[in-house]
């Protein structure tokens, strides 16, 4: 038992930003747009830090794959209480085609290298909404997985996970090492306060290249087109019930 937890943190466009699609429909506009840590990753970091505060694990390592700016996201995780960071540098073309499969290969390689006991990830990112990285990482490592966790408790060398499933909750007990993915109700992530951000600057972030981990980043997916969701139609006011019925009839609703 190494007592080491790897937490994946993704740098995404801030949840409050209005997303715009590029004029050529190839991707969304990211230049000059506010970015922050994926909210589900925040929940994952919080859970790892809580485990450490309860002395159930020894070290929390925050990992992010992406360009130079991903280090800011790792800093936020360090400010929340992670011990050190690993920045897997992916930029340019590789970053554009970086998907769940590539990230899970990186996470799996790092988990072996760092002899991690847990990998905790957000269940999905709010930019691509893939919800695949945790599952794929578990598959690549052949580890058990506790996805959509809304409660996690350690029982010796096993871990009990309450999962959010359609129409209710499912409780499972799995062996460690394991991959866990955080759902929205797992915990309340703490705010990265200014003094903690300052302190986090002293913590170490290691720089790793995917090639060092022996990971091939070729993607087999091709993005054909990115489109905005359809505009919501404006409503209208009607004077009488007859008007309403007539309008509904015209629209073929009754």
């Amino acid at each position, binding site marked *: 038992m190494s007592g080491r937890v790897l937490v994946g943190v993704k740098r995404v466009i801030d*949840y*409050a930003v209005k997303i715009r699609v590029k004029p050529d429909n190839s991707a969304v506009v990211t230049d000059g747009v506010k970015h922050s840590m994926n*909210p589900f990753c925040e929940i994952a970091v919080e859970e790892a830090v809580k485990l450490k505060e309860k002395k159930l694990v020894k070290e929390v390592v925050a990992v992010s794959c992406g360009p130079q700016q991903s280090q800011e996201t790792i800093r936020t995780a360090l400010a929340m209480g992670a011990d050190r960071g690993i920045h897997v540098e992916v930029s340019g073309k590789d970053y554009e085609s970086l998907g769940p499969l590539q990230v899970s290969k990186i996470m799996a390689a790092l988990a072996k290298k760092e002899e991690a006991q847990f990998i905790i990830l957000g269940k999905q990112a*709010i930019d691509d909404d893939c919800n695949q990285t945790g599952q794929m990482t578990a598959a690549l490592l052949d580890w058990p997985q506790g996805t959509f966790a809304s409660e996690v408790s350690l029982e010796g060398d096993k871990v009990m996970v309450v999962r959010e499933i359609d129409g209710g909750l499912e409780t499972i007990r799995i062996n460690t090492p394991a991959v866990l993915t955080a759902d*929205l109700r797992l915990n*309340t*992530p703490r*705010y990265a*306060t*200014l*003094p903690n951000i300052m302190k986090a600057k002293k913590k170490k972030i290691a720089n790793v290249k995917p090639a060092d981990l022996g990971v091939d980043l070729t993607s087999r997916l091709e993005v054909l087109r990115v489109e905005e969701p359809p505009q919501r139609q404006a409503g209208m006011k009607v004077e009488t019930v007859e008007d309403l019925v007539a309008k509904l009839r015209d629209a073929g609703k009754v």
Partner: protein
Amino acid sequence: MMANPLRAEVVRLYKNLLYLGREYPKGGDYFRDRLKAAFTKNKSVQDPEQIKAMIARGEYVARELEALYYLRKYRALKKRYYEE
């Protein structure tokens, strides 16, 4: 001017609130103006007990802001991903 032993703590609180205010729903500028006014208003207070009470109040505001930001994010995500 006499250096008040609580000065460092007041400055720290001010910086922290300024940092938190950047995300304020009505904008960082709106928050900063009011923050500055609130601190300036009490600049002549000398009584350590009174200053301590004011710091405690400032820290309470900071916690409230954190809670506000968390709720705003939580609600946005809940609306986006969970139908109820």
